[in-house]
């Protein structure tokens, strides 16, 4: 069963590398924030898998909770920063110009 968890962790690491592509290349800043959030969610799962491999789940669960909480706060903070700094066209007016449906 350890081999199975090791394989799953490696697959998750591969997915993290793929998401990193969007973080490096991504055309806008917001794409990079999305990429960071996605990597954070995958890391939360990966930490618990590591705990299963090392047979110390009770320890790694605590680290994982802290990681999830800080990931949430970091995403909100980054979104707020670029919301304030880059607001050129407020969303409502922009929506009324297009008037879709």
């Amino acid at each position, binding site marked *: 069963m350890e081999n199975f968890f090791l394989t799953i962790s490696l697959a998750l690491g591969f997915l993290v590398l793929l998401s990193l592509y969007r973080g490096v290349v991504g055309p806008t800043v917001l794409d990079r924030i999305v990429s960071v959030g996605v990597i954070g969610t995958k890391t939360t799962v990966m930490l618990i898998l590591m705990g299963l491999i090392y047979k110390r789940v009770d320890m790694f669960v605590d680290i994982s909770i802290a990681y999830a909480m800080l990931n949430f706060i970091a995403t909100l903070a980054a979104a707020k920063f670029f919301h304030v700094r880059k607001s050129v066209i407020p969303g409502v007016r922009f*929506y009324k110009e*297009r008037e*879709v449906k």
Partner: protein
Amino acid sequence: MRYITTFLILFLNWLIWSGMFDAFHISLGVISCALVTFLSHDLFFKEKLSYRNIVETVRFIKYIPWLLYQIVLSNIHVAYLVLHPKMPIEPSMVRLETELKKDLSLVAYANSITLTPGTITADIVDRKHYIVHCISKKVADDLLAGDMEKRIAHIFEEAGYKED
């Protein structure tokens, strides 16, 4: 009353997290929960408590399985769109009116929209209109039919949905 309920919920959380039931750690838990209750008693429950809250909680728990089923459906839909070689997406922005009034029901509706088939809540204007990004035509039609809004209104007993 709010203090006591907040304290009990937090203390249950502490017992689950701590996992040690000797006197020293229990007393630490009581002190910590009292501190957090003192700091943020008005954050957990904004309005006065009543028996309604129990009803709402029970109904919300009943609502979760349906929501999980919808989430699985939506993920299969998105997976089909992603893995299809031509990517048959038709994105559009839709304005959606709502009649919900309470904070919690607005939030529950918005998060349910974000989680279910191919739609994301982009903004709320004046607590009356949602601006929703839809990924394909079929999904937008499903959303405008308004099945989910009725369920949410039934959970939180909004005005106009008193039947049943």
